[in-house]
């Protein structure tokens, strides 16, 4: 009996709908030799001088109009959202915002959203869907805020609901990981048709320090944990967590905010333009399959994983075609 190994998707193979756009890195071998270690990537991704969401928004989009509030509790400054134009096309933006200074970091809670931040995001996701605005999210957070008030107001519920809403939001979604992609708090903005990341961004299930504290019982083993967790750009390409990397300036994004923003802008225009041509039903189906494919398992029985069922809208559409004289349906 042959073991069947169900592998996780990879950017190069599994996606099938990401054209290799100029300037995007879809294969780690395209990167310069001497690539940074995982720990160096962690440091770069966290660099306070790195361009944060608001700076990127100002350079990439025109006429940004911020929208505030979750309509229930509070406007969370760690999440910034609003409507702007991307090369003349109106889009919705939802982004995590760290501070560029200690003062701003305190105001922004170091980019760690409360539940009401995710709920503001969900409100804007729904608004984007209602008015057919493509959605661009910018991920940059150490994680969702772990304080007791966040627990009381349902941090887990907010993240779960936000992830679920994105899996079925009927508008194109492009995700860009700008810096730190910290666990569920990042994924709550991270479900898209295309997931891009800056070259030195990281995306991980837990912080290296947290992982080290639990598995090595010492936070000082964070560097080792970072390497083991495969959280840096090239690793993310390899596992398919991101579809492509956006090149940073040679010294890192913090050395040239304009050049970084220009690279992001080029990538976003191409991706939004491409996705806007895909019928929404196909987009939702492909989005489902993109995330459905994650996982590496061994199935000793050699059994076939069940084919994902046809999306419900397909089934409804085909069952609605009842006229037997209508041709073209096979």
């Amino acid at each position, binding site marked *: 009996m042959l073991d069947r190994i169900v592998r996780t998707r990879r950017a190069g193979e599994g996606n099938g709908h990401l054209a290799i756009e100029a300037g995007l890195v879809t294969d780690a071998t395209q990167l310069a030799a001497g690539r940074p270690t995982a720990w160096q990537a962690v440091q770069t991704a966290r660099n306070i001088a790195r361009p944060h969401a608001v700076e990127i928004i100002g350079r990439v989009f025109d006429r940004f109009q911020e929208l505030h509030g979750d309509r229930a509790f509070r406007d969370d400054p760690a999440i910034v959202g609003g409507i702007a134009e991307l090369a003349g096309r109106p889009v919705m933006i939802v982004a995590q915002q760290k501070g560029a200074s200690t003062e701003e970091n305190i105001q922004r809670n170091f980019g760690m959203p409360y539940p009401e931040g995710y709920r503001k995001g969900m409100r804007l996701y729904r608004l984007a869907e209602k008015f057919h605005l493509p959605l661009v999210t910018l991920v940059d957070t150490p994680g969702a805020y772990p304080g*007791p008030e966040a*627990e009381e107001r349902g941090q887990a519920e907010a993240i779960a609901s936000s992830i679920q809403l994105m899996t079925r939001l009927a508008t194109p979604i492009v995700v860009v990981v700008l810096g730190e992609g910290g666990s569920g708090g990042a994924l709550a903005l991270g479900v898209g048709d295309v997931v891009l990341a800056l070259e030195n961004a990281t995306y991980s299930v837990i912080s290296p320090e947290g992982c080290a504290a639990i598995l090595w019982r010492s936070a000082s083993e964070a560097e080792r944990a970072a390497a083991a*967790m495969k959280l840096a750009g090239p690793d993310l390409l390899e*596992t398919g967590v991101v579809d492509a990397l956006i090149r940073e300036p040679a010294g890192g994004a913090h050395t040239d905010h304009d050049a970084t923003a220009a690279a992001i802008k080029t990538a976003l225009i191409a991706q939004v333009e491409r996705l806007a041509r895909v019928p929404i039903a196909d987009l939702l189906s492909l989005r489902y399959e993109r995330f459905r494919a*994650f996982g590496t398992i*061994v199935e000793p029985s050699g059994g076939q994983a069940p084919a994902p069922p046809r999306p419900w809208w397909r089934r409804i559409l085909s069952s609605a075609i009842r006229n037997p004289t209508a041709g073209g349906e096979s």
Partner: protein
Amino acid sequence: MRLRNPFGRKPKEFPSHLWTQCPSCGEMLFNKQLERNHNVCQKCGHHFKLDAAGRVELLADARSFTETDADIVSSDPLGFVDSKPYPERIAAAQAKTGHKDAVLTGDATISAIPIVLAVMDFEFMGGSMGSVVGEKLTRAAERAFAERKPLVIVSASGGARMQEGTIALMQLAKTVAALARLDEARIPFISVLTDPTTGGVLASFASLGDIVLAEPGALIGFSGARVTSETIGEKLPKGFQRAEFLVEHGFVDQVVPRTQLKERIAFFLNAFRIAGQDLRWSL
């Protein structure tokens, strides 16, 4: 009058392979009897943890459970090694629990209602969710969708499995995407939270039940209480992250004692089933 067994004292005449002391009331409980009572203290109602097999026995009608996808196992996508390699940890957990990973899934009936049932096992690497848990839960949801059967998931988990890195994190999106299809199709999903349900499991499928039930005293939260406590540098409120706390704060519908759990789930499934039979509704 019978003397209460003082808390923490474990007399010699109660060998631990036969007796267990209740951490809540101090009573010495005869293991066989405790097991017959589904690991609930007969004296004070304290809920001990219950493994996957015991959970299936508690909820599924006798002999109704047929396990599915029993033999899929985790590979080691990252070649992860901490103090020991990830495959060794899996092997140890398999030996300890007799199961291949931290969730059992299958078809069953609850009070004669056909359902898809998934029960997590905290004994298997802290009930952590990696590729196998994510895949089995997703297949369970997809089967519930295809066969239009309600889905019941009993959670017990410390969160995502770190040894599978970001792939483990992606299981959050994978499972809730499958639940979104159930939701659109109006197929009921009942989520049962048991001690403990935390981290990535609570931040994905476990929070999304049409009905969310929890066992008494279960620890339920996003961040570990240790992390939260360090964040504010002070003591947490009493009952923080316990099931009853979550009812007060609006995230759990009911705290249900284990012995009433099956009947309660059946009530909700029946209500949805009977109401749904009214075809005039389908517009």
